[in-house]
């Protein structure tokens, strides 16, 4: 049985180093072709007709005028007579035409007779949602009533976080061509190997008939796993247009309205504690929406899951908004924000340093992570100059600009998804690895190349990485921070296997046996005797005219120690708030990230930096604003659906906890965990600065000023 284990940290030549991302120049020169960039010969453009109402029934729909417009090749109705639409902007019909302009004109000619039905789009006040509330059963652990009665102190707080949208810069969509019995599908997807099957099922075709290709994807964040209703209709439009390729990419408003969102989270939380800060009980009433399906309960109390006495009540609220989709660490940022806000408020009530309170209660965290959290709290305190800059809540001087610090905490599973890799060595010495995977900008391509090069003792440039096509071996969806774990493990196994075959071929010419050979520094050599060696090229020549290949599988039930689940992280935010204007300014974010084995430290750090910036957006700016009267989204564009700009983020300090003892755990996954704690940290820093809790995020000037006003009165 070959040894698949990762080579020891000290001997790695390519892994653990930070070569530049392999597709970097292609992207930074504008030459990379995303599927939204495709211009296929004869390609048709599309436009969607969206529902203007949040809740309505189609009495009748007449597309005849649209069909007659010159340049229109096909029209598909997506909400036929009798159909109910449940959110504004839901798709009603889609038109294919020779230009975008004609397609849009055609959409305007479609006549719909609507029966408008009552809608409900606001969930922030649970008392006003009426029959849209779907309460889950109460969960009780221990004896919370007794614990609250006996508590030295009880914290009572309210916190809220609105619905956010993914706002992928490359909108959801695809170019699709249904010609004969084959469908060519060029989507923007997080799952190259699986999206074809989804399309095939919906078109009632064998999955073998759908060919998927994607070189680059312009952001997904959890929202791009499906073939999508518009992709399915796009295929039908293509068929109805004689097999011409059809481009269906959402416009920005549709992207923000219908292509997924992150559910809101609201909670009234009570915590019972002793004078020394030890928590004894938790009581939460929480609610959330992510459209008609409501929203599930975030995992609260977060991280401190083993608080002995708990009462949890959660209500999903059905609202007439676009449906939720997974959003980078689903429900964890919400859980971290709700929990850490309450813990910070408890510390303030006790007059305690929250660093001390967070550490004191670490006994309630999963046993495997307790030491890590204690280590990280210390490290984060050091990097944020906590002992110098932290002060008691509100004790921040007499000037109008108040500085404050706050903590956020995270946990995540990760590990590796099911992945298959095929590795091939050609007799000319060239090497290729193939996986039906995708690079979301996380650096997947580069990391696969590093693992293969490391195993084969070659430089990174010697390996051709082929991903992005469903004719390659099936690899998992990029979700759950499992891609690097999955593709690295399958690539390691495939390249070890193919190298074994090469060893067998060349062993006789080195007067040795396969088990005594190793591949290092571009050579195949006898272990411990570098005088007996062949260059890589000379070794591969021994293959004659034959290429050799082998496969590797990351089996999630037996990952062979190559990847494991479970990480912890701590973030500390440092903000300044102008109490006259309500403006919050980021000074610094510190992220201390537990990370297992890191294949490329630079790419890993980029993930954490990006996650911190996303947290700044969520804490200070982002909010999908609904209008109760009309049921419409008021800001489905990027002027008022705010994202942070380059000057809004302050400084960010990342500490990747790369250590031998963490490395031994194998690859864990990093895409999601650092997105979790940032909003909590910033919200807590603002409370620390201004002396009062702003009850909901984003911490816009109006909310900050309102909280200050309430405190004064």
């Amino acid at each position: 049985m070959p040894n698949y284990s990762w080579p020891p940290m000290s001997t790695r030549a390519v892994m653990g180093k930070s070569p530049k991302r392999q597709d970097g120049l292609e992207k930074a020169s504008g030459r990379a072709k995303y599927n939204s960039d495709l211009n296929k010969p004869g390609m048709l453009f599309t436009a969607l007709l969206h529902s203007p109402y949040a809740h309505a029934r189609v009495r009748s729909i007449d597309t005849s005028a649209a069909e007659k417009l010159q340049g229109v090749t096909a029209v598909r109705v997506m909400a036929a007579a009798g159909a109910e639409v449940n959110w504004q902007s839901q798709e009603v019909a889609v038109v294919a035409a020779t230009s975008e302009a004609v397609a849009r004109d055609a959409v305007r000619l479609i006549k719909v007779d609507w029966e408008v039905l009552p809608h409900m789009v606001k969930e922030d006040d649970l008392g006003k949602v009426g029959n849209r509330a779907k309460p889950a059963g109460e969960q009780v652990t221990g004896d919370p009533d007794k614990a609250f009665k006996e508590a030295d102190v009880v914290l009572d707080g309210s916190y809220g976080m609105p619905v956010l949208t993914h706002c992928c810069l490359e909108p959801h969509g695809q170019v699709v061509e249904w010609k004969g019995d084959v469908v060519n599908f060029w989507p923007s997807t997080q799952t190259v190997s699986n999206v074809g099957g989804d399309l095939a099922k919906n078109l009632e075709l064998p999955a073998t008939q759908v060919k998927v290709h994607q070189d680059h994807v312009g952001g997904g964040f959890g929202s791009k796993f499906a073939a999508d209703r518009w992709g399915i209709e796009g295929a039908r439009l293509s068929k109805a247009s004689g097999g011409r390729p059809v481009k269906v990419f959402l416009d920005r408003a549709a992207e923000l309205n219908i292509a997924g969102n992150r559910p809101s989270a609201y909670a009234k939380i009570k915590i019972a504690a002793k004078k020394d800060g030890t928590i004894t009980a938790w009581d939460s009433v929480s609610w959330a929406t992510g459209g008609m399906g409501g929203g599930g309960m975030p995992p609260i109390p977060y991280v401190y899951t083993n608080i002995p006495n708990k009462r949890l009540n959660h209500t999903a609220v059905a609202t007439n908004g676009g449906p939720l989709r997974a959003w980078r660490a689903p429900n964890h940022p919400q859980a971290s924000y709700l929990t850490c806000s309450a813990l910070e408020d408890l510390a303030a009530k006790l007059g305690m340093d929250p660093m001390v309170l967070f550490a004191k209660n670490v006994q309630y965290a999963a046993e495997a992570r307790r030491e890590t959290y204690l280590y990280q709290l210390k490290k984060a305190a050091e990097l944020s100059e906590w002992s110098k800059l932290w002060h008691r809540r509100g004790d921040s001087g007499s000037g109008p600009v108040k500085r404050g610090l706050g903590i956020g905490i995270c946990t995540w599973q990760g590990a590796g998804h099911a992945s298959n890799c095929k590795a091939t060595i050609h007799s000319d010495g060239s090497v290729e690895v193939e996986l039906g995977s995708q690079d979301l900008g996380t650096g997947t391509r580069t990391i696969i190349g590093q693992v293969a090069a490391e195993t084969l003792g070659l430089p990174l440039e010697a390996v051709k990485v082929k991903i992005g096509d469903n004719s390659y071996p099936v690899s998992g969806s990029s979700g759950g921070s499992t891609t690097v774990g999955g593709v690295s493990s399958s690539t390691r196994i495939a390249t070890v296997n193919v190298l074994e075959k090469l060893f067998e071929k060349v062993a006789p010419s080195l007067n040795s046996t396969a088990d005594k050979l190793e591949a290092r520094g571009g050579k195949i050599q006898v272990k411990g005797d570098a005088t007996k060696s062949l260059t890589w090229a000379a070794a591969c020549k021994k293959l004659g005219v034959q290429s050799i290949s082998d496969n590797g599988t990351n089996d999630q039930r037996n990952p062979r120690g190559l990847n494991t689940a479970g990480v912890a992280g701590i973030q500390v935010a440092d903000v300044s708030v102008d109490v006259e204007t309500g403006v919050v300014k980021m000074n610094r974010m510190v992220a201390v990230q537990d990370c297992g084995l890191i294949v490329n430290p630079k790419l890993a750090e980029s993930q954490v930096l990006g996650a911190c910036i996303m947290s700044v957006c969520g804490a200070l700016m982002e909010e999908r604003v609904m209008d109760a009267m009309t049921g419409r989204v008021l800001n489905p564009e990027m002027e008022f659906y705010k994202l942070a700009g380059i000057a809004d983020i302050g400084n960010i300090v990342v500490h990747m906890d790369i250590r031998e003892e963490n490395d031994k755990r194998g690859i864990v996954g990093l895409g999601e965990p650092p997105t979790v704690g940032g909003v909590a940290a910033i919200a807590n820093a603002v409370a620390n600065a201004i002396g009062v809790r702003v009850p909901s995020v984003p911490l816009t000037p109006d909310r900050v000023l309102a909280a200050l006003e309430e405190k004064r009165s």
Partner: protein
Amino acid sequence: MSKHHDELVEKSPRQSASGESGFSRRGFLRTTGATTSAIGTTALLTEDEAIAAQGAGMGPGAVPITLNINGKDQKLTVEPRVTLLDACRNNLDLTGAKRVCDRGTCGACTMIMNGKVVYACTVLAIDAQGKKIQTIEGLAAEGKYHPISQAFVNQDAQQCGYCTPGFVMASKGFLDRNPNPTEEQVLKGLGGNLCRCGTYMGVRKAVLEASKVMKGGKNA
């Protein structure tokens, strides 16, 4: 309560205008536009442009225009409502500039026009005639890379990369005017571009690195 959807759309000025004046305008173009559309040199959609020029759709019909892009005159036929961005992406296969917000907010479509940085999604193609337009494709010759692009790679200033060409062009426009910027100036100068993956820390370093390299005279 019930409403005809077409009540909403019939108020659209574009549609009512097309009903009154579109006919004669299109009739005029049928005689002039159809011939010129065949001239289209690098245009991808000549057949569809021909349909457009014959009066498909509801706006005034397509017109032949010439755009000077990356030092070369490009002839194409587009409707007056088509933006410079869409003309480049859909008609000329210049897809480095991306359509993201389509409302002049995010900067993913940034181009340089007569030396000034513009959001190509808010410039009409017909208004870009007679101007010198530079897209990211014009920054470096084939097989070569501009030092700004290189600096973005060196500093890992990109993830999904969809905003990156816009950032590179905005950086070019910024460095042309501020060849030796401070970090503070970079924060102001690049404030018109947005990134969703969160690559700003790298972008700050990349722009500063590029300013140093370009001053060294290696490339401009």
